[in-house]
């Protein structure tokens, strides 16, 4: 039965992989690259540039984790995933982590067996319409044709929103952001709905962004964050605390510019613990002491990543809003490094 055993093993390898991957950290270190699931292309969050080099806010998280774990921010294999394929890719072990505008919901966390390690962008679902349509509020959208990315929470929010407001609509389900953009621009739908950040990012790529308005209503809570598989708590800790390190770095004023200088030792014990000059936080994670320093050096702290990729100085032009540090009245808050 040796042969059938081999064949059988091959056939169920995909299913078994999820259960077998108990030590993702070891796997990643042995492989030398981090497989990170990102979106198929959303400017500002994750998109390849003209040279095929991925960049963006979500990509920044992948690179920070790669730098912390492998010491090389370039050692990332980016796997583009659609709204439909992302969870299968993560559950099957094809990717080690997913950083792709994914909303943290109860059922994804509990039923789909994923572990959200934090929130890197507090978002909400919005609507975009051409200015000439003359619609200023989502409450006026009765009977409208709505373009929507299929396989996302936005699909469910949309159904709930129109139902609770007693309005009718015609959903046009679309697989990727690029196709949605094409249909929206051709007028095949009146409004385009997705996370407000995604709308801003999409609008920034239009020829005349000024011809399109975002409606004031935000119809849902969309906490977006990176996630890993259930069951490998150590790997979950690595990703969670890498994200927390970026947030804490901003809070403590550690930037990509001064991290080298600060890692020589400062008067602030928390900075010292973060950068590994005091205590053994890195070793507790199974990494070396410089892990956080390397993560911060890649793209800077959380605030720098935000400003460089999606901030007000970029074409996407998102304000910090809810995503400001808690000290500035936002929701971005990291547990202490202690």
């Amino acid at each position, binding site marked *: 039965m040796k042969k*059938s055993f081999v*064949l*059988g093993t091959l*056939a*169920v390898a995909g*299913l*078994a992989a*999820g*259960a077998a991957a108990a030590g993702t950290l070891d796997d990643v270190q042995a492989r030398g690259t981090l497989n990170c699931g990102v979106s198929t292309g959303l400017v500002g969050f994750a998109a390849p540039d003209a040279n095929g080099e991925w960049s963006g806010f979500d990509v920044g998280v992948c690179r920070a984790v790669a730098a912390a774990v492998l010491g090389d921010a370039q050692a990332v294999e980016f796997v583009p995933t659609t*709204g*439909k394929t992302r*969870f*299968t890719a993560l*559950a099957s072990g094809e990717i080690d982590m997913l950083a792709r505008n994914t909303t943290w919901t109860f*059922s*994804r966390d509990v*039923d*789909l*067996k994923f572990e959200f390690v934090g929130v890197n962008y507090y978002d909400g679902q919005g609507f975009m319409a051409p200015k*000439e*349509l003359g619609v200023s509020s989502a409450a006026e*959208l*009765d*009977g*409208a*044709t709505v373009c929507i990315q*299929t*396989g996302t929470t936005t*699909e*469910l929010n*949309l*159904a*709930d929103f*129109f*139902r609770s407001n007693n309005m009718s*609509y*015609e*959903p*046009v*389900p*679309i*697989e990727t952001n690029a196709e949605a953009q*094409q*249909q929206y621009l*051709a*007028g*095949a*739908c*009146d409004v385009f709905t997705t996370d407000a950040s995604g709308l801003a990012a999409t609008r920034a790529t239009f020829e005349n962004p000024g011809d399109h308005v975002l409606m004031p209503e935000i119809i849902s809570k969309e906490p977006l964050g990176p996630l890993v598989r*259930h069951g490998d708590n150590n790997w979950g800790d690595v990703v969670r605390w890498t994200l927390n390190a970026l947030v804490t770095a901003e809070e403590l004023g550690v930037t990509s510019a001064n991290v080298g200088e600060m890692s020589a030792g400062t008067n602030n014990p928390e900075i010292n613990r973060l950068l590994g000059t005091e205590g053994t936080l890195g070793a507790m994670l199974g990494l070396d002491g410089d892990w956080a320093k390397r993560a911060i050096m890649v793209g800077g702290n959380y605030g720098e990543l935000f400003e460089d990729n999606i901030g007000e100085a970029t074409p996407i032009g998102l304000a910090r809003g809810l995503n400001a540090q808690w000290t500035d009245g936002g929701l971005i808050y990291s547990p202490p490094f202690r």
Partner: protein
Amino acid sequence: MATLTDPDKESFKLSMLLYDTRYRSMTIQVIALIGFVSIVFWLISNTITNLNNLGKPVEFGFLFESSSYDINQRLVEYNSRDSHLRASFVGVLNTLVVAFLGCITATIIGVFVGVARLSKNWLVARIMTVYVEAFRNVPVLLWIVLAMAILIEGLPAPKAFRGENATASLEVFDSVALTNRGVYVPEPLFSNGIGDVALFGQSSLRFSVSLDLILIVAVLIASFSVSGWIKRRANRIQDSTGDRPTTWHLRLGVTILPVALVLWMLGFHLGYPELKGFNFKGGTHLRNSLIALWLALSLYTAAFIAEIVRGGILAISRGQTEAAASLGLRPNRIMNLVVLPQALRVIIPPLISNYLNLTKNSSLAIAVGYMDVTGTLGGITLNQTGRELECILLLMLVYLTISLSISGVMNWYNNSVKLVER
């Protein structure tokens, strides 16, 4: 005197299973069967165990939870509070619609092209060759996407119909709206309709059938049978007397008058599309996704059917055509009365497999956002519930059932046109 003695009664020994050629092949087959079954069993139990380890036991309870999403094209009443099972049912109906429309159109185009490709007219034959080769050799997904892109970019948005200086207008006596969100055609309405009959109570497979439609179909069937009886009577009279009575006015009358009367009694009128708010309201809305999918699947499959038809016609020996011609039949009638009926026997078996292909290819619908069963059960439901294995198994079951039904019906038809041999 010779005495007949029975040969020694051979006793059955276990080793004969292996060394006796009478039993050996059976032994091998039994062993192979046991091996095969145990591999299958092992694969299934392994999968279930692994899924259990992942915390995802195989169960179908999610089908009865509320789906929470909307579907644009629904032939039966459905809203986001209905169950996933109901959403799957809506998807199955959408699959059946596009498969049914596609098979009919593909057959019509295919037969026409297949015959025309054999035409003696050089230009017609060459054009048909180009059509067949172009469609047959490009993946159908590309044709679907192309058709969708043409519809979206080529047709005007509903807003072009609005206002004083509208750039677009309705076609065909102001009754058909061609927009980049779909085609709106007039819909039949009944002001004194006799209502619907609801089937299957409150289950997820419930649907209602219009009694108006049933009545009209019943009247049509009755009319046609009366018309057939008139024809047979005329044949009888012609056989016995040699004179055929004029029947066309009678047959036309019994076909048209009763239906017209029923339509008038039901208060039949057309509902025209009208621009209201963001979109056209009223009329039947044929969405772009349906049209693109239908068109692409039909044209693609028609190219294959054309080749099958051409092959079927070429399989009929030239002598048949010549014999018919020498009897004085015109080319049209030779094709319809002599060649095609015989060619059908060659054509139908491969035609069945093309119908099956078309139905299975309709699962590419998601490329244009058509909500077929792959889009609902295998798309949104799968994604929102995370039940990959269960959804895919159900999906396979659905396609298997549809395909087996199609081939069952077509095989029955094939048997009825098959050459009866004595």
